[in-house]
Structures are given as structure tokens and as C-alpha cells.
């Protein structure tokens, strides 16, 4: 199971990093999404992998899994969701305003009606 989880995290991270390095906003957003998936699985795994044991106190239980990473990963999922939404909107705004979805900057003098 460790091998499966580890290779999944590695694969997602590699794909995410590759996509982030692309020039256009859409692949970059996809890349960041993949990267956050990888991070979420990673954070989840930091409490050690355990099968079939409860995370909350239970009289019948003989062993527990660590509940804290599960709480952390919930927070991380919510935050990455919100951040992705903000990113999509800003990317959309930039694409509509400039007519292309390139991520790089071109030098434009300030002060054309907007300062």
C-alpha cells in the first residue's frame, strides 16, 4: 500500500510541476490542481497508513489511526478549492482583458488611463 500511495503522490507531483511550467494559464491551473491533490494525499499519509482502525475514541477499539492529518487535509482541501476558484476567475479576467491566456509578462508602461 505504501508503494501505491508513494508512486501516486510522485506521479501527481511530477505531472503538476510539468504543467505549472507551461506558458498558458489553463495548463498551469490544471497543474496546480494536480499538485494540490498530491499534497492532500501526502498530508493524509503523514499520520501513517492504517487500515480498518477508527480515528476517534471508541471503547471497542484496540488501536487507532491518527486523526489529526485527516483534519488537516480537510482544511487543506477546502483552502485549495477556494484558491483554485479565485485563480480561475483571475485567469479568466486576465484572458478576457488581454485577449490571450499567456502567463508571462510583457513590459507595458504604466499610466494608460488606469493609474
Amino acid at each position, binding site marked *: 500500500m505504501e508503494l501505491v500511495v508513494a508512486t501516486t503522490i510522485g506521479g501527481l507531483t511530477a505531472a503538476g510541476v510539468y504543467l505549472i511550467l507551461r506558458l498558458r494559464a489553463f495548463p498551469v491551473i490544471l497543474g*496546480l490542481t494536480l499538485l494540490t491533490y498530491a499534497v492532500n494525499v501526502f498530508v493524509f499519509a503523514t499520520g501513517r*497508513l492504517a487500515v480498518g482502525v477508527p480515528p476517534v*475514541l471508541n*471503547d471497542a477499539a484496540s488501536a487507532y489511526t491518527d486523526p489529526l492529518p485527516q483534519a488537516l487535509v480537510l482544511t487543506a482541501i477546502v483552502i485549495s478549492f477556494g*484558491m483554485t476558484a479565485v485563480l480561475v476567475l483571475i485567469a479568466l479576467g486576465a484572458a478576457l482583458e488581454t485577449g490571450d491566456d499567456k*502567463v508571462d509578462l*510583457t513590459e507595458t508602461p*504604466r499610466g494608460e488611463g*488606469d493609474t
Partner: protein
Amino acid sequence: MNHWIIAPVVLPALLAPVIAFVMRHDITLQRAASLAGAVMLTAIAAGLFMLSADGSVHVYRLGAWPAPFGIVLVLDRLSALLILLTSVLGLIVLMHSAASGWDTRGRHFHALMQFQLMGICGAFLTGDAFNLFVLFEILLIASYGLAIHSGGKARLKSGLQYVIMNLAGSSLFLIALGTLYATTGTLNIADLSVKVREIPVEEAALVRVAAMLLMIVFAVKAAMFPVQFWLPGTYANAPAPVAALFAIMTKVGAYAILRMHTVVFGPDAAAIGTLSQDWLLPAALITVAIGGFGVLGSRRLMPLIAFAVLGSTGTLMLAVSAFTPYAATAALYYLLHSTMATAALFLVADLLLSRRQSGDLLKAAPATVQNGFLAALFFAAAIGIAGMPPLSGFLGKLLVLDALRVSDYTWLVWTVVLVGSLLTIVGFARAGSLLFWKSTSAEFVAPVLAPEDDEAQPPANTIGPMLAAPSLLALASLAGLTIFAGPVARHMEATAAQLFDPSAYVTAVLVDQEGTKDPSSKKSYDDETEGAAYGEAGAEDGAGDDTEPGTASEEGH
């Protein structure tokens, strides 16, 4: 438990939604509420500053849960100082935004501003590493909105870059925290401080990885080489008052390194040693160099200031990188100065650029109204950021250079800092003479633009006292820092001493726990049996590896 400690987080957090939802149609009401909030925040911050000035560490336990289990806010000299700085800066920036009308050029400016203040204050206060991540996200999401406030092509493009850079940074932050938790079984900073010091050198690999990953994350926030690329574009394209507020954002990164890499990954921890120092010093040196050359090479005013910010960040991080109490004293003094100098410079630049017809290109153009007054303000702010006497930048740089005198690389550090300062001075002198002197020269004005020039300026464009006040306040604070350099430096010394002796911090968080809930009161909480049970489970699954299972389960409940 003193409930005022959480007030710097709660006050803006409550005020922002009210501004966003109830007052959204009335800008006057928004301004009044926002400014009143900032004044109250400053008053609270001043109160907390007085409270912490005697060197006591105050802990606020959310929900009254005992320390490594619940989240804590910790008020010590360092966090109180930075909250005070944040609130004063916020007040100045809000005054400028209201006076210059920046807040009317897009929606929800004041609400975002309050959320931003909430995130920054929270990041300075929190005593929990994961909570630090959450508050970073709060301040970042507000800053995304502020950076693209009032829109425009260039602003949206650079805003997009800024968001992407920081989202990647946030992912890295989570990876670092995950690694740290997997190694130590806790995320409470005080508890981490104890646990990291217990790790023997042979088993230090993972915790060293976590320390370096965290440093990269904080370097992204502080804009240090090699992750400084987002800063010039973002600052140069953000609205000027927002850029002025962002002066504190790079300091959040510096603060985080100062806190985490002394209290947790301090040089006295066997597992870490001089690791942080070895990487921070060269990165800071290169940042100073990039800042200097950037200032010299900029053809526009806003990027020029942004590169000056980069240079001052580099200088600040140089002082941090020594990890000695004296160097931290210098770093803190320089931090106060650099925040205020950057803010002053951006505000003055805004006053100037909103009155120039040719935008921020560094070329001769018709003189603006009150050319002399603006030139004087710009001159004062420029000598502030370049670190020339008589303003506090000179004292700050002097302290930094003196603090780094004991290292092996003194000659290199001194050369880089001094040459960087020289490049900054040359860059600003060139910019100032192009912007202010060339524009009044007879040969330039007479043939082409002189007739138009006289009529083109409507009298409404003059800088009234309300508009000049924020910039003057920022500059006055620099003068204040110079005049009261002695008392300020003594307080910084006490702050640094507290930072480098985390025992009071750890004791306050972990030991003095009267009045908290007792997690063992209900049933079956027992460290040893639980730990043993968990250990068995770990062994059965083959999942528990080299760390002590007891610590992991301890945090888990």
C-alpha cells in the same frame, strides 16, 4: 487568559463582512468604518505592545484546550512589535487610499484591506505551524484581490503570476508541514521547539528537509533569490497604496524565518546546526545584488521602487541569516525602517504619478503642480530606502553591517551591501533628476510643452493636507526612528534576546496551563496505554516507521 490577544484578528474579521455586505453602496460609510477599525486596531496593538514590553509571554488558548492539542496564539515582544507596525502601516495606507480616491476605483477595497490586516496580524500572533499556513492563505487571498484592484491589462497579468507563484508556494508549505508532522508528531511551535531538539543528528535527515522546505516557502513570501521573480511585477503593477501595504508582506516571510528558524530550527538544535545560515546568507547576498542592478536598470518608476524593495529585503535577510541576537536586533530595527521607507516611497510615487501625464516612464515630462514639494518628498523617501543619513536607513544598515562583522565572509557581505547601496543611490538620483529637474529645465519645457503645461493643470490637482498627510506620517516615522534610535534599538535588543531564548516561550505555552480543559477528564485518555496500543497497530500494519509512535498518537487526541 487575556482576551485582547485575539482582538487584532477578530476585529478586522468582524468588520470586513459588515463593510462588504452592509455598507457596500456607501463609500463614505465604508471609509469611516474602515478607518475607525484601523484606529481601534492601532490602539489595541499599542496596548498589547505595552503588555508584552516587560518581556512576559502571553498565551491565548482557543477554546481553552491545553497546548499541544488546541491552537494557541502567543503574544511576545516580537509579535506585539510587528502587530503594532502592521496596524500603523494599515492606518497610513487607508488614509492615503481614502484621500486619493483609490478605494473608489474598484469594489470591496476596504473589506479586502480589513481581511488583509486580519491575516497579517494572525500570522504574527499564531503559535501553531498549521494555523500559520491558514493565516497565510487568508492574507494571500485578500492580497490577490487587492493586487488586481481596479483592473487593467498589466495588473491582471501580473496578478495572475502572483497568484500562481503563491499557490505553488502554499502547496510546498503543506508538504513541509506534512514532513514536519510525520517526523515530530506535532505542529505546535513550542512543542516543535522541544521535539526538534530531541532528534539525534543521525536521524535528522527528514527534519532538515522540512526546515529547508519551510525556508523556501518563507523565501517566496519574503521575495528572496531564487524565488523573488514575482515581486517586481506584482509591486510595480499593483495600485500604489496596495503596494505600500505589501511592504509588510515581505516582512511576514522574514518574520516566519526569524520565528521558525530560531525557536524551532535554531542553531542550537543538533539536528539543524548551521543549515539555515548556510543557505540563507548566499541567497540574501544575491537578492541584494539583484535589487541593486534592478534599480539601476529600471526604465519605469514603479519597478525601480520594487527592485529597491528587493534590495532592502536582501539586506534584512542578511541580518537574519547570521542567527545571533545582535544581528537579530539589527534585522528588527532595519525591518521597521524598511517597511516605513517602502510605504513612504510608494505613497509619494502615487502622488507624483497620478499628476504626471506620461505615466511612470522615467523620462522628462512637463513639471507637475507643486513640483518642488513632490521632489522634496521623493528625495526624503529615496534617501530613506537607499540608507543615507540622516534618516534611519543609515543607522539600520550600519547596525546590519556591524552585526555581520564577525562572520567569515565579512569582506563579501560588506562589498555587496555597500555596492548595492551605491547602485540604489545612483538609480534614485537618476530617477529623481529625470522626474523633477529635467521637467523644469528651460530647454525642455520652452519649445514643445510650455504653453500647454501652464493650462493643463486644473487647480483641483494640487496636493491638499489630507493627501499629503499619510506620506508625511510615514516619513515622520522614519525621522522618529532616527531620533529615538537608542530606545528603539534597546527594545529590539530585548526582543531579539527573547527570541533566542525560547525557554520562556515554551514554558508559557506548554507548562503554565492552569484553567484549560482537561482532555483526560472524560475517559480513556492515558498517554502510555494509548501510545502502546498505537505502537502495536503501527507494527501490525508495517506502517509505523522510525519515529516514536507515542508522540504521533499524543498529538492525535
